[in-house]
């Protein structure tokens, strides 16, 4: 019977109105993502600026970047920040998801509470945390002093500032990880757990031998979105530390912003942005390879 054929095989009917449906979205994506990505690459080979006419400079910007100690520090800070945020965020998110995937009393309330920081605007969160970390009148140091411990200049000490920002980012992001892990947990068939329990497997073994491996594709997805997101940290630094003290919280995007908009060196900023883009791409590719090896 002809009816049993799949629609695809019946005929290919070119539908011209599809292009009209797609056009507005594609024009916007072209303008906001595709053209900028191409423009960044082109600009990175020029010295474009508001201050003087534009010249081609070849690889000068990249050579300058290699020797730029400030940029090196920004890269190191960004990597430190990304690693510091990503793994605790995923671990906390997974724990929260596993805990709230059972019939725990008040689990909807817990879920909502853990998700609230995700909803807060970055600037509101940054302002509130700037107050919590405030060295003289802030609640954190007040509590420490009350307990007889030494108060610390959380955001003013170069050895503490970046880690203080990391703690705030984990607070803000682990709700995202939890929601995505909860979704992943719903895909694990119940029989698997049932069988493991009948075999008398203890809970921690069930967690490490079943839950964690069954969630590995979700973990990979999360790892990528968290790396891409934390690599681009900007708002929190703009509000809380302005890259200081002593450049200890200066990250790639923050330095890029400074280079482009404070010093109007757009070409040099574009070179930084290209490096940032390639780094994120490399991380994604490495992640994909690790995942493939695990599956195989």
């Amino acid at each position: 019977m002809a009816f049993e054929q799949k629609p695809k095989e019946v005929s290919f009917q070119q539908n011209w109105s599809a292009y009209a449906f797609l056009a507005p979205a594609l024009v916007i994506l072209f303008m906001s993502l595709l053209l900028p990505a191409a423009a960044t690459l082109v600009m990175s080979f020029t010295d474009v600026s508001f201050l003087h006419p534009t010249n081609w400079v070849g690889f000068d910007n990249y050579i300058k970047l290699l020797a730029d100690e400030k940029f090196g520090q920004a890269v190191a800070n960004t990597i430190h920040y990304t690693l510091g945020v990503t793994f605790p965020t995923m671990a906390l998110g997974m724990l929260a998801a596993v805990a709230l995937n059972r019939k725990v009393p008040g689990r909807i309330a817990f879920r909502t509470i853990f998700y609230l920081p995700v909803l807060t605007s970055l600037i509101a969160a940054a302002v509130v945390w700037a107050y919590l970390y405030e060295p003289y009148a802030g609640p954190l140091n007040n509590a420490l002093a009350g307990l007889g411990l030494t108060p610390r200049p959380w955001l003013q000490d170069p050895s503490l500032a970046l880690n203080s920002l990391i703690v705030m980012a984990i607070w803000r992001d682990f709700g995202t990880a939890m929601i995505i892990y909860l979704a992943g947990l719903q895909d694990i068939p119940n029989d698997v757990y049932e069988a493991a329990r009948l075999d008398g497997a203890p809970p921690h073994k069930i967690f490490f031998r079943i839950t964690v491996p069954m969630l590995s594709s979700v973990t990979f997805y999360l790892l990528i979105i968290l790396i891409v997101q934390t690599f681009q940290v900007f708002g929190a630094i703009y509000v809380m530390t302005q890259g200081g003290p002593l450049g200890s919280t200066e990250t790639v995007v923050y330095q890029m912003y400074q280079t482009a908009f404070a010093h109007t060196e757009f070409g040099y900023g574009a070179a930084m942005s290209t490096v940032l883009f390639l780094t994120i791409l490399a991380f994604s590719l490495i992640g994909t390879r690790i995942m493939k090896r695990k599956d195989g």
Partner: protein
Amino acid sequence: MTALAQHVAIERRAAARARSFRSYSPAKIVGYALLVFAAIMTMMPFLWMVSTSFKTDQEIFRFPLSFVPDGFEWQNYRDALNAPDAGRQLINSLIYAGGSTISNLVFCSMAGYALARMQFAGRNIVFALVVGLLMVPAQSQIVPVYLIVQKIPFAGGNDWLGSGGTGLLNTYWGMILPTAATPFGIFMMRQFFTRIPMEYEESARLDGASSFTIFRRVLLPLAKPSLAVLGVLSFQSAWNEFVWPLILTSQRDMATLQLGLQLLQSGPDARWNVVMAMATLITTPVILAYLFAQRHVVDGAVSSGVKG
């Protein structure tokens, strides 16, 4: 056979008993205590935000600091609302977030519909492009997007080559356009439309309806839950956005609430209680919107993000 079945049943019951017994074990109680502790720690910044917003200027610098304010100092909220340009910033934020939300709903659902249910040459390429763009880090594009918005032809005194004027800088259009459609939104709507059975539109097509009529009358009404998710997420991301408004506006009267809050906090005569009142005012609408749409948002994140 029956003996085996009975045996299995007995073992199941034993396992169930063991499980219900375990539910009162010390490990469970410790686990629950940890959960409560984590919830309190997560709430702490919000609680301090609200409590500080009700404190007087003297209370903030008292030692030891009290968590519970002496009273409700509503004056802080009045001061926050009377901060220079606060009303203007609210209007700007609403226009920016509203415009971005509406355009995302319209453009992403149209594009998602075409990708999910229409046949046309280049469909796979377009879809691959959308998925690829999901990976492009938006914040690394702040420099070129600024220059592109500045060089839009015929806008803001520009000539046809896009030079001479300021383009769409310092305009609502300039703020909304870069966020008017997102790869995520298109992807999410495509995933949704793919799951709707083809029969829905086949009967409409037999009645001679056009593609647009089918989209508008048949599929969009079915997509209400997904549109609610996309709407809440778009509104939230624009309302909370900081970087675009920061670089695309240089005039104070185009600043959004997020910029306003940052200006309020970094100002020379910043008062923490007023800053916290402003932060509370900015945070509340998004949280309320989420609580109303909660079920949809969680389900939508589930179905669009992971299950693919």
